[in-house]
């Protein structure tokens, strides 16, 4: 009997592996969860895109629920996202701040004039150094910040209407309830 058990062992290993693989097929290994969730937004100070003399820093992100969207004109997926964001911004639910990531100021300004500007204010990160502090590893990425300036959620990839409905709005409502 004891001897038989040894021979069953390989099947158990196989079953366990297949279980993991099955689960793994539904995970996307390229999405990396940010360790910054639940932490205050990192301190930073960047010039604003439209007015380089003015600074944009973390204090701006306190006091209300807001979104910070990392984008760039070289980012193909951002084009698709732009329209959704524009539509969303018109509903005036939360302010959307932009972090223009490793971009060229002139192209960025042109892009906004041509396509419309969904952002309440835009910080301009030419070197990408601030983005590193935010744990950004590509564009677009979107952070949800609560009233206390704490990062509560991060979405990697372009925002679509579906993402807004399914991922963002419920969380924004929950944060509002929490805050009041």
């Amino acid at each position, binding site marked *: 009997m004891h*001897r*038989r058990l040894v*021979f*069953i062992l*390989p*099947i158990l290993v*196989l079953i366990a*592996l*297949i*279980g*993991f*693989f*099955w*689960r*793994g*097929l539904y*995970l996307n*290994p*390229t999405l*990396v*969860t940010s360790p910054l969730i639940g932490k205050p937004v990192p301190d930073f100070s960047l010039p604003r895109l439209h007015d380089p003399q003015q600074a944009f820093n973390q204090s701006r992100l306190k006091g209300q629920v807001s979104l910070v969207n990392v984008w760039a004109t070289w980012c193909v997926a951002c084009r698709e996202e732009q329209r959704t964001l524009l539509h969303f911004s018109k509903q005036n639910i939360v302010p959307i701040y932009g972090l223009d990531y490793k971009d060229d100021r002139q192209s960025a300004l042109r892009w906004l004039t041509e396509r419309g500007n969904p952002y309440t204010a835009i910080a301009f990160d030419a070197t990408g150094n601030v983005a590193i502090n935010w744990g950004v590893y590509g564009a677009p990425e979107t952070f949800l910040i609560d009233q206390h300036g704490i990062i509560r959620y991060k979405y990697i990839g372009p925002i679509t209407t579906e993402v807004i409905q399914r991922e963002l709005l419920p969380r924004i409502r929950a944060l509002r309830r929490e805050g009041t």
Partner: protein
Amino acid sequence: MIPELGQLALVIALCLAVAQCFFGIVGAQRGHFIWMNAVRPAAVGQALFVSLAFVILTYSFLTNDFSVRYVAENSNTALPWPYKITAVWGAHEGSLLLWIFVLGLWTLAVARFSRRLPQEFASRVLGVLGLISIGFLLFMLTTSDPFTRLLPPAAQGRDLNPLLQDPGMAVHPPMLYMGYVGMSVAFAFAVAALLGGRMDAVWARWSRPWTLVAWLFLTIGITFGSWWSYYVLGWGGFWFWDPVENASFMPWLVGTALVHSLAVTEKRGAFKSWTALLAIAAFSLSLLGTFLVRSGILISVHAFATDPRRGIFILAMLGAFVGLALILYAWRAPMFSESGGGFKVFSRETFLLLNNIFLVVAAAAVLLGTLYPLVLGALNLGQISVGPPYFDHIFVPLMIPFFILIGIGPYVRWKHGSVPHTGRKLGWVAALALLVGAIVIVLLRAETSFIAMAGVLLAAWTVFSALQEPVQRLWQRLRHRHASLGRSVLGMSVAHVGAGLMILGVTVTTMLGITVDRVFTPGSSLSVHGDQYAFEGVQDVSGPNYQAVQGTFVVTHDGRPVTVIYPQKRQFRRDGTTTTEAAIDAGPFRDLYVALGNPLGHGAWSVRIEYKPLVRFIWLGGLIMVLGGFIALMDKRYRRVRITAVTLDVAATLGDAGTNLRREPEH
């Protein structure tokens, strides 16, 4: 019209594979001779129709038939014709067809060379191979049809991925697949033996040459892949521990264990169930590799573009094949009495057991490292990366005892070894290895680490100990003219020498190689390891389907010219992608490696220069291992198999279900 014929050929092959599988397994189970007689023709037909499909796809590539989606996506009229052939396996669908084609070749070979095997056994082997063919043909026809039409046809194809436009592409994938798929034959032999309820030394003797051939191909494939990535990826590395590389390394490690374990089963009739498990594991790991590469479940630089349906299909197939084999194993293997008799602690058997332990633990470590991020993700326990530093840390402590044992094992007698005898044979070898190690360490002074010293010492030990026997025999022969050395033993010695040279190459390149990244302007120069590299600037050159910038470096040593090398940066017209063609001045004892980085304006370029001592020994070692395997394959014993198999089989049939059969080796 012609591509549809290809599709039809695959459907017919599928029908024939069903017949092959059914008649093979059920016919043997029922002892139905007419059914069993149908197996071989069905198998041959299946293989021929698969080959026809392969030829048709190749034809579509050669005739630029861009109405076939797969051709349109992976070829171009400007693509040189040899690459049109290799483009057949340049992406998922075609490489899967190559997989099935190679399985067809193995099936043909088994059908051809199994006539001397008992009919029931040969039927079962072909039946199991048929089952594997069914799985892969269904996979191809349902999710990955290479003959799908593109409507309207494209005017021009997209071109083959520039990385794959290399002569290496003609050798690496076919060899690797020959190895991967070859493990299915060892698997089929093991499953057939389990089905038949007879597993003995005769079984081991039959499956040993097949396993050895598969192992040879796998070794060639991996060695070639390593060399290819060395010169094509532009990093100067020879092994990256990427999940897909690991996927080919795991079956190799287990296959190597299997080749050794079969020796014990054949010579001593021992460890039968363990050997059978290894045969199942080696092929399972091949299937696992297929799954990892084609499912997108892991992040890898080599992965194919993915479709989740494919992942699910291969996973189901993996579960079905391996699951069935393991259930059969759990049911049948305990019935085989562990015969083969006893052996002393100090005996060949012990050393081969240890060999198996280290190889299997090494394979398990690679598996663990490769899958660990996936498992953590599936359990929601965090995201981690397991990269080269992990594998290096785990592998070195496993390989040090392993290579010490490699030297000793062959000099210990079967069943009952004698320490003084082995000591006499190896004493001077150990002394010589220590001497060489000491000389090397003195030459390299204090700049080496402990690992480098251990590596050099182990390499010397492995090579010298492997040479001891052949050298001694040769010496005896010169004096007395009657000592002989079996090809089997000679093959083993040669293979072990190869392993030793590989360790030497890996250690020395890793520990003593130099990499320098610098900015060069025309006229500037830099000295690396005594060689002076003078940059003379870049010029534009043009290839059949790319434009390139080519740098010129004049290398001198103490004012004497060494070489002039021309690294390139190619931009392909397909989609503007660039590749780095490193310039390599290859020498037996060192490579000089120069790669262009990025232009920095005003004629300045960033450049990577590497000095790689003994890097060629890595691949030379691999090829010598292959040579060793080939010599072993030429052993008289296997040529005699055709005659003796019949007599052995009669004996086996007469014996009590064969399980207790013990056959003393002739030598």
